[in-house]
């Protein structure tokens, strides 16, 4: 089956174009945008890890190494499309317009961290693995019934493919021809469990056969192939042709979360090796250099701007003040039931006493 689902690439590791299908669209401005968004994501991620180390936020889930997969796929969304991320997909949510402040607040354990900017259909990270695939199918199906050309994109990992909801999500989407992109980031591990223990198949893309929908396997560290293949799948979906399963093969350099120690279950030398070879940013830099428009000064300037933006987000996070405790009570139902109201009241009178 590997032969039937070969890993598509546009750029090889050296940043050389090995597939010219989209060469016309690989403009300097698009390339730079992709690069900037990846750099921004990486810098956000490193900041997240740092904030955790400094105790300014709680456990954080890093994604370094997966920037191309997330940025390339989310950049093709249009206004009104629906995004269903996991806990590891801040590069995607950030690129699609989530608030960096709120993302940091999420990892600080603030309820507001789950709230996307007004008008942005970004779901909070689905904590139970694979459960979000069904929501993406449902919202996409709703768009289809409304007659719009909006679609949903849902992110999930290699581990998530083992859950029943993965199967039910793909089956419902295929039966109802829902415009949804099932975007799998196959980073080779579900916490400590390698792909070989998760499934016998060598590819995830081939699972599309079980639903008679297109399955595409791509190099998830090649931002061009991610961008153009996701775009193709979205156009396919928007024109009423239903869902696509995309397997983006990638790797996380770091720990599963800041509470995890990857050296327990894998050789971290591999991460080092990949940073030097298959890294998505490095690869695009090489391509840009080959094209003659990579420029260290430009990069430095971009970095400065991003640094400013992220520092501002951190400042905003910290200026937010204490988390709103009453959020616990006020949004369980549209109108609190008597038992919640009573608990809320007695909470408030305790608070008053404490003052």
């Amino acid at each position, binding site marked *: 089956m590997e032969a039937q689902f070969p890993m598509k690439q546009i750029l090889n590791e050296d940043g050389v174009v090995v597939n010219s299908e989209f060469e016309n669209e690989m403009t300097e401005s698009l390339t730079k945008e992709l690069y900037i968004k990846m750099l921004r994501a990486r810098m956000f991620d490193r900041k997240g890890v740092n904030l955790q180390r400094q105790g300014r936020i709680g456990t954080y889930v890093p994604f370094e190494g997966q920037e191309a997969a997330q940025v390339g796929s989310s950049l093709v969304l249009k206004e009104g499309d629906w995004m269903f991320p996991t806990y590891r997909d801040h590069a995607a949510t950030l690129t699609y317009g989530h608030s960096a402040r709120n993302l940091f607040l999420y990892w600080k354990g603030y309820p507001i961290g789950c709230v996307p900017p007004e008008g942005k259909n970004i779901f*909070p990270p689905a904590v139970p693995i694979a459960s979000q695939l069904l929501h993406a199918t449902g*919202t996409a199906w709703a768009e289809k019934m409304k007659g719009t050309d909006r679609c949903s994109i849902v992110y999930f990992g290699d581990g998530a493919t083992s859950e029943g909801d993965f199967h039910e999500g793909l089956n419902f989407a295929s*039966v109802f021809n829902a415009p949804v992109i099932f975007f799998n980031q196959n980073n080779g591990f579900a916490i400590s469990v390698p792909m070989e223990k998760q499934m016998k198949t060598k590819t995830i893309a081939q699972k599309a056969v079980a639903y008679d929908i297109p399955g595409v396997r791509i190099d998830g560290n090649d931002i061009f192939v991610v961008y153009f293949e996701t775009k193709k799948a979205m156009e396919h979906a928007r024109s009423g042709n239903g869902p696509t399963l995309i397997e983006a093969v990638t790797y996380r350099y770091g720990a599963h979360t800041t509470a995890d120690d990857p050296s327990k279950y894998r050789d971290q030398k591999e991460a080092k090796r990949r940073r030097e070879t298959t890294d998505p940013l490095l690869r695009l830099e090489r391509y840009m250099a080959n094209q003659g428009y990579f420029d260290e000064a430009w990069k430095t300037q971009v970095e400065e701007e991003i640094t400013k933006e992220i520092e501002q987000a951190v400042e905003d996070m910290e200026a937010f003040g204490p988390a709103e405790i009453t959020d616990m009570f006020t949004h369980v*139902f*549209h109108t609190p*039931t008597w038992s919640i109201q009573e608990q809320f009241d007695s909470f408030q009178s305790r608070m008053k006493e404490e003052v």
Partner: protein
Amino acid sequence: MSTAVRIQKLTMVQAITDAMATMMREHDDVLVLGEDVGKNGGVFRATDGLQAEFGEQRVIDTPLAESGIIGTSIGLAMNGFRPIAEMQFLGFIYPAFNQIMTHASRIRSRTLGHFTVPMVIRAPFGAGVRAPEIHSDSVEALFTHMPGIKVVVPSNAYDAKGLLIASIEDPDPVLFLEPMRCYRSHKLEVPEEKYKVEIGKGARLQEGEDISLIAWGAMMDVVKKAAKEIEEAEGITCDVLDLLTLYPLDRNLITESVQKTGRAVIVHEAPGTGGVGNDVVSLINDTSFLHLRAPIKRVTGHDTPVPMFAIEDHYLPDAERVKQAITDTVRF
């Protein structure tokens, strides 16, 4: 101003169909989906005729996957629709437990109201109709313990229509439980118009002075029979309450009744351990301790799975057990 209310005599299952049809006529965003709800009209005919009237776009046969039904309904509900998802039997809701527990019931609170899930989950339930194993589970307590979802159980056609309409209009998820034993046991006068029975309000079916009998769903017939017989036999009069909503409980109704009678018997089909009856005991303990003249009695299913149907009658509370509990309590 008043126009004459047109009345029809309906069984409970007909009243449920009628409630859905009423709401679907009024609101394009109301959908029905589930296993066999389309052409077949549901295994109990609860959705009979709906696909013929509203089409395959609004009355949808889904694949056989409960998590899929609830999970996609959540997506539909977040994106402008009001799905009514049918679980073929409450005993088959378990594969969807994760979707209900971690999503349907939490999305509003997780997103501080940014996304909401106005959906209804309908499910036939309860023993006594000679159904196969698992089909007869009575697990309302699993859902009353789940923050973010309401749980309602009508026991007759009138309440069924009004409560289902109220559930569909509710901005939050509602689990609408349908006691199979009541589906066709009585016909009642039901207005053709739209009307609502408020969620969170129980009903006093009968006034009495000596003891409060508290129950819901299919147990109402058992309780009413016991109340009648015990009055005839011993002159004990019962205040009979049909709770109708199991979360949130009608605290005022229960409190007022128990403070009047000083005694209570709670009857439910589910196992006693972990049953909603315990919540009612706690509520009475919290509100009416000094009024109690005897310990509260619970008459419930056993702490066993509902057995195969040849012996299920011995699992279910019956009027004899209820009467025994009443006399024990009154004579305490």
